[in-house]
């Protein structure tokens, strides 16, 4: 397996995440938050606000954005960029929904993976 390969892992059903909500996926790199919007789009981002590390998965999901629960930074779920006056970026991960299952691209999750 090389670093260029896409590794899609089934992490659960779409229905396991509430609409306008989020769930966590634990990885060796830390927690990744999976967000489901009102229109059933799913996004995967690092669960760390670029401001002070707040857990974005605990925020309120609205449109294609989430508001951090600690200091109300608003993060765009598509780009991972902070909106408004705030500046910062959250890492995003490729994710897709197929047949009601959520697949996440996991090649970047483990830095020690190639050695394994």
């Amino acid at each position, binding site marked *: 397996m090389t670093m260029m390969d896409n590794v899609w892992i089934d992490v659960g059903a779409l229905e396991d995440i509430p609409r306008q909500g989020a769930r966590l996926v634990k990885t060796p790199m830390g927690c990744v938050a999976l967000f489901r919007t009102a229109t059933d789009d799913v996004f995967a981002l690092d669960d760390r606000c670029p401001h002070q590390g707040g857990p974005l998965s605990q925020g309120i999901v609205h449109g294609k954005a989430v508001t951090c629960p600690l200091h109300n930074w608003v993060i765009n779920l598509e780009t991972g960029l902070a909106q408004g*006056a705030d500046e910062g970026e959250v890492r995003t991960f490729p994710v897709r929904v197929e047949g009601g299952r959520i697949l996440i691209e996991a090649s970047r999750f483990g830095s020690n993976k190639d050695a394994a």
Partner: protein
Amino acid sequence: MPKKLVVVGNGMAPGRALERLFESAPDAYDVTIFNAEPRTNYDRILLSPVLSGEKTYEEIVIHGDAWYDQNGVTLLKGKKVVAIDREAKTVTAQDGTTADYDKLLIATGSVPFIIPVPGKDLAGVLTYRDLDDVNAMLIAAERGGSAVVVGGGLLGLEAAAGLKARGMDVTVLHLMPTLMERQLDAAAGGLLKRALEDRGIKVITKANTKEILAAHDSQGSTRVRSVVLDDGTEIPADIVVMAVGIRPNAAIAKDAGLETGRGILVDDHMRTSDPDILAVGECVEFNGNVYGLVAPLYEQANIVAGELADSGGAGFVDKALATKLKVTGVDLFSAGDFADGEDREEIVLRDATRGVYKRLVLKDDRVIGAVMFGDTADSGWFFQLIKDGTDISEFRDTLIFGPAYAGGDLADPTAAVAALPDDAEICGCNGVCKGRIVTAISEKGLTSVDDVRAHTKASASCGTCSGLVEQLLALSLGDAYDPSAVQPMCGCTDLGHAEVRRLIVAKELKSIPELMQELEWKSSGGCAKCRPALNYYMLATWPGEYVDDNQSRFINERVHANIQKDGTYSVVPRMWGGITNSRELRAIADVADKFEIPTVKCTGGQRIDLLGVKKDDLPAVWADLNDAGLVSGHAYGKALRTVKTCVGTDWCRFGTQDSTGLGVRIEKFMWGSWTPAKVKMAVSGCPRNCAEATCKDVGVVCVESGYEIHFAGAAGIDIKGTEVLCHVKSEGEALEVIVALVQLYREQGHYLERIYKWAKRVGFESIEAAVVTDLERRKALFDAFVYSQKFSQSDPWSERARGVKDAHEFAPLADLTRLEAAE
């Protein structure tokens, strides 16, 4: 060798005169001041804010002791001069202290006029002149009760507002048909009366006081009991404040043989009939006029300084005077001469909805008088026009709209902000400076405080700089800025909170998507600001029908614990009325050990906070706490938080009622209810108030005769004592009033608006009418609350501890750490 200057009196006028003298001729005199008051010089104009609690005495001191030291002044405090010997050139104080003078400055001020009615000398009849008077009023106000202020002039109304702010029941008696008739015309006087009545102050005009009646207390001493008018009306009064006017205090000057009329007669250089004696301030009479406002007195002080320094200078002339009432929230201004006349014209602007009235009196194309009520922002500009005698014919058409339309740049209200450098910090919480705000306004086209908040974070935290931000908007946008526009709930709508609440009921909107469709929300699914608000409004409006939308709640209310900075949570079990026992404490200790909870702390609301709980552990922590009978304390919610109590008649030797029992009863009745913002309560067993009930959203102070119900206190960003809502005789009635009050708040409050802000917005009287006076309304509110409680009184912890609800909240969707390891 310097000459000897003796000053009799230590008010604002002689203080200013000495300041100017020391600037121009610092070594000309050895100065000795006799001050009848036992203190230094302070700003008498600011006594009203001291009375109302907006300022402290320390904040209004003009010259502290150090100033007298630095300038080599001998200040004799508490020494009242009783005689002047012009032959020997000495003055003598009451205690025998004497001083020689080469020059004498008399500044004895004025004395309040006491109307000569029977009872005027009773204990409890006060005047309003100096700090001692203010202190006497504050002591009286602490006991509460009723105050009658005799006199509806500037001073009387400020006293009335101050006493009202201190919680007294205040009635103003005014002899004339309209208030402040010397400064205001009848229209503005009427608006003022209404504004005061809206603040809960009773105003009786054409009230002629006949006598003051006495009550006899148990020690046999007599105090004021009531005031009787000539039409027989009797108004109860624990104190009476005489504020009908002042007259110059010219007694010692007269005794010394100086020429006096109403005051000490002076020429335009403030010289009395004795060439070595000058007089200044409220005690003088010049050209038949006496003076009580500060501007002409400071003018006189400058002339006195020049005279003492032998530097000559122009003499004193009468000028137009301006008046502003220092009652917070009442904007009123008057200047010049505004009487009607054949040769005069007037320009009037009325805006009944905003409560604005402006009237300019013109003569020969010049403004000679101005009266403003409700909006006095341009008053400085108008006053300047009056003083300068500016010819206004060029811009007469737009004159009434103020300097913004006249091209004038005098006294611009935003001048102070305009003068700040770009790096001046506007928002201390978020460290935002002026330059950044101004740049954001122009570059991003911002038009409201909310916009500025969203783009720069200025005023986003405590909000105290909102006023400065508004001024920067006004400065940057000019007329394009409209601060009176309704603040929209958020960027998703143009509607304000009040309008949205009204439409939810009127259009029977019963879900968030339905509301967003019907009210044309601009975003597809709302935002983190409007959704929690809408969810609350739906819950409060349609109990039993609306299904709570968990995803529209802030995380704390979604998982029933408080998120901390590191993403862990804090857990606070309910302790009814602050009462606990060994079994509960043991369970808390066990939970702390079992889940390695790092911090255990007592909260301000008499319960215990477990801090640093991992989210995944929450259900198990709750299960253990539930087993010991502990339930959620809702410490995380816009909901009933705590009911603090003291031990009352159970233990306390001063307790008058069972305060603990009542607190527990209230908490058991009301827990679980959602409210616009958090609600904190307390019950104190006696007026010593150990439960600190008088700074709570709702408080009860038990007294021998029953229960005093308080509300609208604050002890956060704002500090505010409560208002007394009513006094009731039984626990049951106390509960009914409190429940009705909270229900009214639940129905009217804007999301995140605490009770004190709600009460201020809707008016204390409307609340009193709904829950105290109108018993049917009270009952209906009570019943509505009881009905809604059917759907909210279940412990959110036990539902989740048993895994019935929201299990997805507390476990990850997937764990890829082991998967990776397996690879």
